[in-house]
C-alpha cells in the first residue's frame, strides 16, 4: 500500500515572500501555529528581503534542528524552497564560512557553484 502524505499542502502563515528556489541568509523567525500543520521559517537575505518557507517538523526533524541551530547561533543558511514553499533542503555552515557575500549585490544563488 502506498502511503501518501496529506493531499492538501497548507499555505504559508507568516509574512514575507514565498520561498521559491535557493536563498541564502539568516533565519530570523520560526513559527508554530494551530493555523498550519507545518512550521514556518522566515529567512532574511542580505538585501533585507524576508522569505517564508514551511516544513513538516515531524518528518524532517534533522532539517528542523539545522534551522533552529541557525536561528540560535546566527549562522548563515541556505534554504531551497519547493512546491508551496516547502523547505526541501537546508544548509548551515560554520560562522566563519559564509555562504554568501554580505556586501555587493551579487545573486545569492551564485554561492551554490562558488563553494565546494
Amino acid at each position, binding site marked *: 500500500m502506498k502511503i501518501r502524505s496529506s493531499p492538501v499542502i497548507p499555505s504559508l502563515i507568516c509574512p514575507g515572500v514565498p520561498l521559491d528556489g535557493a536563498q541564502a541568509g539568516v533565519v530570523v523567525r*520560526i*513559527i*508554530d501555529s494551530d*493555523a498550519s500543520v507545518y512550521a514556518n521559517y522566515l529567512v532574511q537575505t542580505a538585501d533585507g528581503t524576508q522569505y517564508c518557507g514551511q516544513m513538516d*517538523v515531524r518528518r524532517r526533524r534533522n532539517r528542523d534542528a539545522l534551522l*533552529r541551530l541557525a536561528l*540560535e547561533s546566527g549562522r548563515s543558511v541556505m534554504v531551497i524552497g519547493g512546491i508551496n514553499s516547502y523547505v526541501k533542503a537546508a544548509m548551515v555552515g560554520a560562522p566563519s564560512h559564509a555562504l554568501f557575500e554580505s556586501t555587493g549585490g551579487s545573486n545569492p544563488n551564485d554561492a551554490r557553484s562558488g563553494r565546494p
Partner: protein
Amino acid sequence: MRFLNRLVDRTQTTRVAGARKKSHAASLHYPEARDFGIMKKGSRVRNIDSSVNLGLVRGGIPLTGVKGGFLTRIIDSNDLENVNFVIRTGEGALYCGQLNIVTHENRNNLLMMALDYGLPVTLSGDDSGNITGLAVAKSDSPIPSLNSAFLKLQDTRTGTVVRIVDKDPGSAVTYVLQTSDGSRYCAQMWPNRDNYDNRNSLFMMALRMNIPVTITGGANHEVTAIAVGS
C-alpha cells in the same frame, strides 16, 4: 563549549548504561559503583566515595520543601532512571533533589538547560527528596517562584519568556510571558498534546536566548501559536 557539555553528558550516560549491560551479560559480579558528575565551570571537583551504596550518590542535603538558586552539578550514577540535581542556594547550602528522568523527561531537559546556561532555578521536593516541581527563569533575573498566577493569555502578545514552570504531576507546563510594559501573562501546554514537543523546545530556546516571542493563547490560555525571533 555548551554543546560540548551536552555531548560529554550523553556519552557518559551511554557509557554507564553500556557498562552495566555488558557486565550483566558477562557475569553475575556486580560492577563497582561509579558516578559521573557534570560540574559547572569553575566549581571544584570533589572525590565522592560511592563504593558503599550501589544506589544514588547524594551531592548535598536532601531537597525537601522549596529551594531556589543555581544548579551546580548533575549526578548521573548507577541508577539508570534517577538522576540527582544539586542546587546551591544564595546562602551557599547545597541541596540535592532526585528526578526520575524517564517519567519526567521534560523536567530533565529544563534542568539540563538551566545548568548549561547558568539559569536561576527553583526546585520543590517531597519528604524523600524527590523533585516535585520546578521553575526556570531567564538569565540575569531573580530566583523564580513556582507561582504562575498571572493574567491568562487569551489573545496574541509579544514579549519575552521569563519563566517556565513544571510542577504537580498531571498539570500543564506554564510559560510566563512579559510584555514591554512589564505586565506578565501565563500560557500553558499539556505535554501529551501533538505539537507540545516542538513548541516547548521553541519556548526553551526563547528563554535561554532572551529573544522576542509572539504567543497566542486559546480559551483555556492554552498555547495555540508561537513565533520566536524578531
